């Protein structure tokens, strides 16, 4: 109940930032585009043709391919642009909580410091999840109604996006509690987001290095950090209904989130405000 009130307040604070409104606006625009760009002619209960941007598409296999294509496109857009925007929009949530005169109020209430931190974290997750599922559910529904093909993998893609955000936001929360600076935490999180995929190519880096110690270091870094590039691959597999070869990137990234939150909670507990 008290935790919920902290989540609600965090939610309310996020809403006050215009970024999420812009997010919703863009999502709505994409849905409208889908409504008007994709036309279906149904004859005798059978699809006779689907037209996209005025071009006719005949075969059912073709339609499925197009559907998966559009959904993959939106999912990747959300996975990259959506997470990018969400991190930006939530970057000030923890630093603003830690401001003198605000955090005092929370701690003086009958809530534990852990609840305060979790409330903030979950509040951010809730609003990002709402934004992401707003687009996934609406665009998915429009596409499925129009094509008659229901692709549940697309919904799962939404889950992957939220979880990936959760891992990165855990890192940002940790950095924010350490530094109390939103911009700094955001920058480092972006660095991890963009440069961790390079660790996939670490074998090539090893070739250039003299000592095997570097190898262990990069291996360690790879297994420790959220694996955004591979999560992107899992996402695409899910959307296009292909089997996922390894879930390791997902569970290890979740482990990263839990670890980060635990360390952050420990530091937060010890802090003076």
């Amino acid at each position, binding site marked *: 109940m008290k935790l919920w009130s902290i989540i*609600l307040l965090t939610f309310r*604070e996020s809403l*006050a930032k215009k970024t999420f409104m812009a997010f919703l606006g863009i999502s709505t625009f994409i849905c409208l585009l889908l409504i008007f760009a994709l036309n279906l002619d149904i004859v005798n209960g059978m699809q006779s043709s689907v037209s996209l941007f005025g071009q006719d598409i005949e075969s059912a296999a073709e339609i499925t391919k197009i559907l998966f294509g559009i959904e993959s496109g939106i999912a990747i857009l959300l996975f990259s642009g959506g997470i990018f925007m969400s991190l930006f929009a939530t970057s000030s949530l923890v630093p603003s909580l830690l401001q*003198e*005169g605000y955090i005092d*109020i929370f701690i*003086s*209430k*009958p809530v534990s410091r852990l609840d305060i931190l979790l409330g903030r974290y979950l509040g951010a997750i809730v609003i990002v999840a709402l934004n992401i599922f707003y687009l996934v559910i609406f665009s998915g529904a429009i596409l499925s109604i129009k094509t008659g093909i229901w692709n549940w993998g697309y919904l799962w893609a939404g889950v992957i996006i939220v979880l990936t955000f959760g891992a990165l936001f855990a890192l940002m929360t940790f950095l924010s509690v350490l530094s109390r600076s939103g911009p700094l935490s955001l920058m480092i999180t972006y660095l991890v987001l963009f440069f961790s995929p390079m660790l996939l190519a670490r074998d090539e880096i090893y070739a250039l290095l003299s000592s095997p110690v570097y190898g262990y270091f990069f291996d360690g870094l790879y297994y420790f950090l959220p694996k955004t590039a591979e999560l992107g691959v899992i996402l695409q597999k899910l959307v296009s209904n292909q089997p996922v070869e390894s879930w390791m990137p997902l569970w290890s990234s979740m482990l990263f989130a839990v670890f980060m939150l635990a360390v952050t909670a420990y530091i937060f507990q010890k802090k003076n405000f």
Partner: protein
Amino acid sequence: MFAIETQHLSKFYSRGKVKALQNFSLTVEQGKIFGLLGPNGAGKTTFIKIVLGIIHPNGGKASILGKPITDYKVHRHIGYLSEKHHFPGFLTAGRVLYYFGKMSGLTGSALEKRMDELLELVKLSDWKNHKVREFSKGMQQRLGLAHALINDPKLIFLDEPTDGIDPVGRREIRDLLQLLRDQGKTIFLNSHLLSEVERISDEIAILKDGRLLKKGPVHEFLAVDRQYQLKIAQEKNTLEAICQKMSVTLSQTDGAFMISVKNDEQLNELIDRLRSSKVLIRAIVPYKISLEDFFIDVIEENEGDGQ
């Protein structure tokens, strides 16, 4: 059970260079208004923050309402107005009370009712649906006070509650605090407005450089035995002559005469003599020093032997 009890609390900053609190032991009884005084940087805010768990002490023990300060659940019965509180500007006054009321464990209609009562009490009823960013400093302070009372607390910490509030508002807050005390609540007050503290506090403590200099009931500190302020119309010379004859110490401050007598008999004899010499007495007032004078004396006595 004491409302607040601390033993040997200490808090250092900057690797021990700043001693915000040193070996600070204090007990505050329930149902009293307690004023903590001290110059800027004395450690008053640090003390409140430690007992509320906002900062951690480097040493010592403390409890509030009989529970160790690490037990956050006791905050169910605590109200706190922070010196620098600030609520998000986009929230309305009503929402501020709503969210923090919920965090204090209130729900539903009980919360709604309490919100309206408190807004009424701090004269912000018309501002319930206005955003905090539209509020003047004094209005924010009133809202802060309302928020501190939302859970009907037993022990209330107020860090400079009348800061930025106009004279009429200050009197209202003073009356409110006395009302709360009469309801059996304990109020712990940090304030620089000594005339106010003097008027409402039952007990005070003076803190300087993190050390406790004085603690006790206000009236004991302020009463000065057998000194009276004497106001007469004229005949200054007559007064001087009589005092000299009776060996009564006479001094003159701020245009009034101060007399220091041995006992009540001597005071009455002095009055008789003055009257028979046709001196017109306007007033004889037992002398009390102001809290401000007392405070400055204590601080000056302890000048220089700080850190």
